[in-house]
């Protein structure tokens, strides 16, 4: 089965494309299909391997999913729709980029919050020291 899908995938050419039913409505060029297909397979995690993306993984399931991605692209599906489809089937864990939600808010906003807080503290400390020096009369100037 796995090799079959791969053979289908790799022998895809404009002539076979006409045979696949268009459901998504987007028409890609072959180059776009390749680039977007690779892009998606870089951003998704192989459900079988330890920590590999679909692109790198040699596991059978990864090849099937890659074939699935290319098939859906041939059908004119958007990147978003394909990822959503795979998330529905395999769960949130398949995405290397977690979506923003209440539970991932800390993940996405934490760095920015931390940066601003530390800079604010540093600026405050410096200002305080300046004030202190001025009142003591031994200014640095």
């Amino acid at each position: 089965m796995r090799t079959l899908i791969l053979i289908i995938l790799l022998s895809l050419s404009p002539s076979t494309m006409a045979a696949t039913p268009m459901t998504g409505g987007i028409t890609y060029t072959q180059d776009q299909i390749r680039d977007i297909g690779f892009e998606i397979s870089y951003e998704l995690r192989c459900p079988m391997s330890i920590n590999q993306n679909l692109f790198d993984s040699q596991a059978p399931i990864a090849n099937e999913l890659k074939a699935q991605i290319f098939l859906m692209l041939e059908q004119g599906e958007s990147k978003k729709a394909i990822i959503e489809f795979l998330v529905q089937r395999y769960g949130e864990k398949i995405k290397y980029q977690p979506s923003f939600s209440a539970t991932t808010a800390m993940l996405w906003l934490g760095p920015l919050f931390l940066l601003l807080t530390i800079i604010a503290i540093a600026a405050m400390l410096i200002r305080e020291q300046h004030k202190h020096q001025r009142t003591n009369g031994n200014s640095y100037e």
Partner: protein
Amino acid sequence: MIPELGLILLIISTVSSLLLAVIPLVALNTKNHYLFSYVKTLTGLMTFTITASILCLLISFITDDFSVAYVANHSNTQLALLYKVAAVWGSHEGSMLFWVVAIAIWGCIIVFSSKYRDRLFVGRLIAILASVIAGFNLFMLFTSNPFARLLPNFPIEGRDLNPILQDIGLIFHPPLLFLGYVGLTVTFAAAIAALLGGKLTRTHASYLRPWVLLAWVFLTGGNAFGSWWAYNELGWGGWWFWDPVENASFIPWLVATALLHSVVLSHRRDSFKVTTLLLCLLAFSLSLLGTFLVRSGIVQSVHAFASDPTRGMSILFLLGVFVCGALTLFALKANQIKSELNFTLVSRDGVILLGNIVLVVAAISVLLGTFYPLLFELLDIGTLSVGAPYFNSIFIPLTFMAVLLMGAAPLISWQREKFSALRPLIVLFIISLAIAEALSMLTGSGFNIWLLLGATSATWLLLCLGYLLFRLRHQGIEGLAKKSAMVIAHLGVAISIIGATSVSNFEQQELLRMGPAQGKVVAGYTFVYENTINVDEKSYTAIQANIRVTDANDNFIGYITPQRQTFKTNAMEVSKAGIMRNIFRDLYVSSGLQLSDTEYLIRISYKPLACWIWLGGLLMMLGGTIAALSGIYRLRVHQTVTSNSKPLNITMGELA
């Protein structure tokens, strides 16, 4: 007999390290000069025994003593000598021993060197180092003894060293990384010594500076070499995948980078002392946390080769003891250590401070991303993955900020800078934005924020360095030499960013089925699959594809030969990419699944400027080494100048 000797030596070194952890501190407390004089003897004893102990392990490897479990599990009579040596640090027990030996040797050099005149500081430092060594030695003795034996029924042939580790990478990558961690351990001990003494003088900072730089050079090498290794190995996610194990060594590097800039300021300007101390503690804690992450196996990684959940607890315990102890001490003593913050944010001091903040935030963000899936599972919210797309979207903007500050810092003056002096910088920034924009237009990639950020930061950094050299033109060789380390290291960062940006944005790739006599054009190069051959090497057999490459003008440029290797000892399969390199591009071919009798799934990539990533790493290491050596040299010069006025031996007065 040799393994028993090794174990006994390990025990002796443990006992002497336990003594050494206590004696200097007691001697200083009771002002007992006589007791203090034992420091050198004990340090020598501890270092000698632990070094002899690892030599015993090495001898066991070389003589194929399979009665030692560690040897039996990681070596084999067929293994090449070089890998038998490297197998010493190839797995958990041996790498722990290697780590401890390196700490002991580094500490021993410090104790016996005449450069470090503040003997009280050195005494406290070696006590802390000895306590770390004691901790790890006890950990080894009780849970992961490298000399444990398989008696009486020992195997006549060992299992093999994990085939995937039989690579030049194993010889360099782990030792460099361990030496980096060892350097951070030494700086940690120095920070505790300073806290115990209640002060961090400029003399202390002058000691600390080369140690930090050396640690940083080793860490840079470890990370760069690891990335290069992963790039060559198929299935390791390429040159950087933000895998937890990669992050575990990258986080300490980020903090060490901040630390090295902070310690330079502490030394030169007598400022940022508390920051320097805190970063010392943070860097060491994070390197231990990384070790825990990798060794406990709690994260899923393609790079973890020595994980075992039972070890996790012991490392976590050591981590808890050292970190809690250190932070408590810091909380108690930090307020005694004062340094003036006599600068504004728009000044070289201020810009370096901001840069360090960005680096630390980057480190904590990477840590957050690495631990988030674990937190998620622990709190039972569900499962999720945090991978490359997330890290890139957080890390690239932070790097951009850091690089902006990094380019500007050497061009503005200490303490405070007039806003008018920033004018040339603004012009430089606009030029680099324009160049980056032009580049993305010319390459027809449309609006791509990542390309724009990468290209702008690299151009900005190069322009700033150029402008700096232009301003230094009247200062002669000496002025240039003083800046050379910084310029080389910063140039390295620019080169690495160029490589990374180029590979990430301009790579061209094809994935296709290929068999003999089939061809494909990628990025102007023609790849023709000529034939498949079987290769028989000492430790593996391989199916090798011979792929003929011609360039755009039909000139033959060579063969690329990706292999699928099967190891003889355990039938494990590994895929080695075939890479044709030059300074402008790498042509990368790997061979995957067999699809029919003659055809394979072949991946062909054109990776422009790929090797610049590691070239930049080498430049950073060169810059760091120059700075470290000149720091050590200056230490000596400084000492000879002052040596007439100070007696060599410490007196009771000094001890008080």
